[in-house]
């Protein structure tokens, strides 16, 4: 299993699915509303100054800052 928090900076990947940590996980729900849905491609453009956390992710035309714990809900697959 391959998650967004381990994607190296500058690399593209495709979102496979978003996992829920708890029942009706509000963070997963918000991630989906922000467009982190299966099939979208993501790229890490920057990492935070301490411990490479948080990460800045490009998703389509938007860009988000996620903590690693949040990014670890997003399962990736390789781009074809």
């Amino acid at each position: 299993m391959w998650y967004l928090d381990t994607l190296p900076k500058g690399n593209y990947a495709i979102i496979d699915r978003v996992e829920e940590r708890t029942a009706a996980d509000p963070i997963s729900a918000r991630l989906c509303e922000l467009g982190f849905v299966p099939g979208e491609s993501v790229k890490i453009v920057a990492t935070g100054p301490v411990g490479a956390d948080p990460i800045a992710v490009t998703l389509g035309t938007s860009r988000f800052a996620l903590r690693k714990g949040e990014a670890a809900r997003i399962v990736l697959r390789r781009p074809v």
Partner: protein
Amino acid sequence: MASPTPSLQADSTLHIALVGNPNCGKTSLFNQLTGSRQKVANYAGVTVERKEGFFSTPQGRSVRVLDLPGAYSLSSTSPDEDVTRDVCLGRHRTETRPQLLIGVVSATNLRLHLRFLLELRSLGVPIIVALNMMDEAKRSGMTIDVAGLERDLGMPIVPVISLHKQGVHPLLEALDRPVPPPPAPLPDGTDIHAEVRRLIQTYVTDRSAGQERLVDRLDRWFLHPVWGPVILLVVLFVMFQTVFAWAQPLMDALEGGITMLGELLLRPLPDGVLKSLLADGVIAGAGTVIVFLPQILILFLWILALEESGYLPRAAFLLDRLMALAGLSGRSFIPLLSSFACAIPGIMAARTIQNPRDRLVTILIAPLMTCSARLPVYTLLIGAFIPHKTVLGVLGLQGLVLFALYAVAIVSGVIAARIMTRGVKSEEHPLLLELPPYRRPNLKSLALGLWQRAVMFLSRVGTIIVSLNVLLWGLSSFPLPPQGATGAAIDYSLAGWIGHLMLPIFAPIGFNWQICVSLIPGLAAREVAVSALATVYALGVSEDAAPEKLLPLLSSQWSIATALSLLAWYVYAPQCISTLAVMRRETRSMKIVLGATAYLFGLAYFAAFVVYHVTKAITGEA
């Protein structure tokens, strides 16, 4: 549920609301539509509070527009989004449901913004889509088939450019046409994301895909693990240096102007109680505070410009780990930074924090962030006691001390938050922050924002501050000294009595009774303490001592230990009733407010005590 379709006569006011994602240009559209005809609730944060405006269409229909807080979805995750959801659904307690929604979407970020727009379709309310930032989209090589998209969505689409007045004209014209029917809701079970993807594939061609955009180039520097924090530090440092340096000539000019005006106005009056009231109570009181308007406005200009440019969320990104040290997330950064202007918008901006505990801790430490009302006190004391010289060639010592006061407050805030969050089982605090494209701050928006703050500040001067000064003047003037008394008049007054009564409590931290007296009105608004000192000393020393004489007066009458102790007191003391009132309103708990008051006064007393005695030991004063 059938929603009532509003019947509209030409003479009735049309109630509309702007709704859209954060960073869709909603607020600048609102500013273009209404100009200065807006009503911002008393303490304006940035789109957290209720913003209402009025305008008329070319054909004379009058429109009332509500600028709803930016939201990503109707399934709200913050009190901020609750407002948007409740108004849209017609469930809000005090707002009526708008007759028409303006769904604002940015052409540069359709993938995100169309999703929310599709969600709004289910509301059964008429919607006009304002497709914003068309110019920017075109420049980046994007073409949108607006007519096709309009047909497909079943909602009228009006391309707008919210940066200038002509850019919003198409929307004004659209408002002259009959209100469109509500769009049909999406069929049950529609995958909104798939629908957005289909719409974009069908109607949008983007030749810019894969090209490097401005945001990529800038983020490479601003989010760089090393250069990012360096740039942030430089920005913050320059910000505080300019607040101190740029404002000085303006302040001198204002001070001179007010003194002249006072003399001019009062010349015809005979000496006596009335002249003393007007000169020492009203003009001197208001004057010493108005003088600080330039500083407060420069600070607000910085915060507004950083916010509008899109840099602020980057700062939150860089500071997220630091915030995590305090047990918070980068989201707390924006409320806390706003608190440097004033804790009131800061505490209100904390509404955008989803996690209730993070929100509470942010509210509790917000008063520790040095608000602009402390600046008058800091400026006065630094001017009087810190020599005006340069260290290391370029840095002003006075600016450095000011910087240190801010730094100490921030470190204390981090420690306080740390203590408050300790022992609580750590749960997850989401950051999930959008990093919007960089934009040049819009001059009109900046000007409006500054204007609103200037009015807010001056109306406070006009109401609370002047009335408190008059009250204080009364306390300091009456009862009159007995015939043939030799001491200063204020020694015999009520204020003197209260000050002397407080003295035993505050003597251990080096305060004299004049400071004690000025602390009382300072409770209503911190900046009043300066004018209160002016009143106390003006009355206590000579008849017509002007406010500018306060500075040399203090440096001759107070020891440096007392001055530093008062500075330390001001770093912590919750000397502002309005802040406590907002805290009460936002937390709905008197217990929290009392707890906050107690911990802040405790810290203030402790810090002042330590500073006073350490300074005394160093300087060797008795």
